[in-house]
């Protein structure tokens, strides 16, 4: 695992974070489904740490804002259309999380059976980007959610040991954490993927 320069984190008095879905008009996914996907993604990090997350309707009340954007969207990091760069997020305590609206996001059902060659699992990308929002950099461990790439029609949402060790060094451990899933301990990379689900 790796951190950003200076190891930025959310301050100790900021352990209960609020997030808002602020730019969803560029996606056909309905709001309820989006809320469910992001709630699950945040819960995966919360389970391992002392952090909690709750959705709020008010952007001004939120620590984290999440939106779908096409192309240039004002932060100097334009999106590039289908595939390529899927999303990006800023380190603490910025809180911005942007997704490329051009992607064929899959928010429900089995992404490994998606008909589109360009289908990308929304929850998998959300778990990764939340890691950045919390201060995690990219990992060289292929089974870690903080690995920089993800193939199409692939689902990778479980924190690996590498992810858990990294986030717990930043925020401490949740005493109720039950440990990483057996398939993500680091010895045998496993992901749910379709046959030949390459990156294009």
């Amino acid at each position, binding site marked *: 695992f*790796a*951190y*950003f*320069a*200076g*190891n*930025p984190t959310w301050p100790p008095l900021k352990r209960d974070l609020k997030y808002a879905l602020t730019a969803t008009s560029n996606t056909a996914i309905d709001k309820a489904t989006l809320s469910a996907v992001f709630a699950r993604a945040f819960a995966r990090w919360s389970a391992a740490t002392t952090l909690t997350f709750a959705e709020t309707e008010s952007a001004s009340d939120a620590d984290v804002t999440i939106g779908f954007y096409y192309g240039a969207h004002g*932060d100097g*990091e334009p*999106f*590039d*259309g*289908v*595939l*390529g*760069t*899927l*999303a*990006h*997020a*800023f*380190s603490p305590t*910025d809180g911005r999380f942007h997704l490329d609206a051009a992607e064929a996001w899959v928010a429900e059902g089995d992404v490994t059976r998606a008909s589109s*060659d*360009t289908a*990308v699992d929304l929850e998998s*990308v959300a778990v*990764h*980007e939340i890691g*950045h929002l919390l201060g995690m*950099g*990219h*990992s*060289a461990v*292929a089974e870690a959610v903080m690995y*920089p*790439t*993800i*193939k*199409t029609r692939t689902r990778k949402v479980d924190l690996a040991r590498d992810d858990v060790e990294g986030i717990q060094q930043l925020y401490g451990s949740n005493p109720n954490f039950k440990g990483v899933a057996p398939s993500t301990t680091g010895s045998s990379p496993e992901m749910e993927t379709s046959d030949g689900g*390459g*990156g*294009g």
Partner: protein
Amino acid sequence: TSASAFPDLPPPPFVNPWLSFQNLSGCHMGDERPGLADLKDYLSHFGYLPSPPPFSNFSDSFDEELDAAIRTYQRNFGLNVTGTLDPSTVDQMITPRCGVADVINGTSTMNSSFTRGRNL
């Protein structure tokens, strides 16, 4: 014009902005090949090469800096460290990914304790 006016339009074409890197497979130091400048842009964006000087662009030359950048990339992604654009390296490069940089200034890697540079 509403989309419903053209109900038989085919879906958007399959697009991957990095697919052209496949044309560079097999390139190695000393080569001059159209498209290497785009690859350098890619590697610069993700931190493996410094940005070109203001008002200039990358060249299509496979130089020492590109060789070193590719070696760092291969090391980070657990590939054979050859310095050449072998097929497995190209396959990794065209895989969809997060827009946050892996490395900055070639001085730190995904294996290190922190990622320098842009906090995006």
